[in-house]
């Protein structure tokens, strides 16, 4: 079974802090994704990565950055956390783009971030 692990389930930070959300997958997947989930808005894509050191902006990248130094790890960074970034953050991974299974995303349990 694919395992996607997010380092924290709950996180409380102060406004202006730099926040790191970590995600690790164990299936050697090329693709990794960061979403935020808010009630009534579904999942919105923040950033994704097709390979090590490669990243592309999603639909709502403002206020976020990412890092992918190793294939199995994809980090989401909030450079200066703000209260409107309080949300549930979900990480996902998927197989290579050359396979039909590329669209099957496997999700971590999520990190609920509160910014005070």
């Amino acid at each position: 079974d694919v395992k996607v692990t997010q380092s924290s389930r709950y996180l409380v930070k102060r406004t202006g802090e730099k926040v790191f959300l970590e995600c690790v997958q164990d299936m050697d997947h090329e693709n990794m994704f960061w979403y935020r989930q808010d009630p009534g808005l579904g999942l919105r894509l923040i950033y994704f990565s097709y390979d090590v050191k490669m990243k592309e902006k999603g639909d709502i990248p403002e206020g976020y950055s990412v890092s992918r130094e190793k294939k199995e790890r994809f980090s989401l960074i909030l450079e200066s956390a703000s209260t409107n970034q309080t949300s549930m953050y979900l990480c996902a991974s998927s197989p290579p783009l050359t396979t039909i299974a590329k669209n099957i995303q496997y999700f971590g349990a999520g990190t609920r971030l509160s910014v005070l």
Partner: protein
Amino acid sequence: AQSVTQPDIHITVSEGASLELRCNYSYGATPYLFWYVQSPGQGLQLLLKYFSGDTLVQGIKGFEAEFKRSQSSFNLRKPSVHWSDAAEYFCAVGARVNTGKLIFGQGTTLQVKP
């Protein structure tokens, strides 16, 4: 623009009753189609997927979904709901070209009455 609409934000059904969750999409071609389920405090789990072929697809936990091209719909069904099915359900579409990205609907929260 590509989009996914789940018209029902909340649905309440009695245990043992049948269930249908609606999903409509707007897309330039036939996309890949997915249903995911999210139990409270958990990540998303894939219920079923449609890539091609038979338009009625079976998934885990007794769920099925039917792709109707003429209606741009991919509704999720279950003949008899169990209390453990209470969760949030997301419909998603993916492009057949090489992007790997999914577009998700807003989600439908299912409540099951005893």
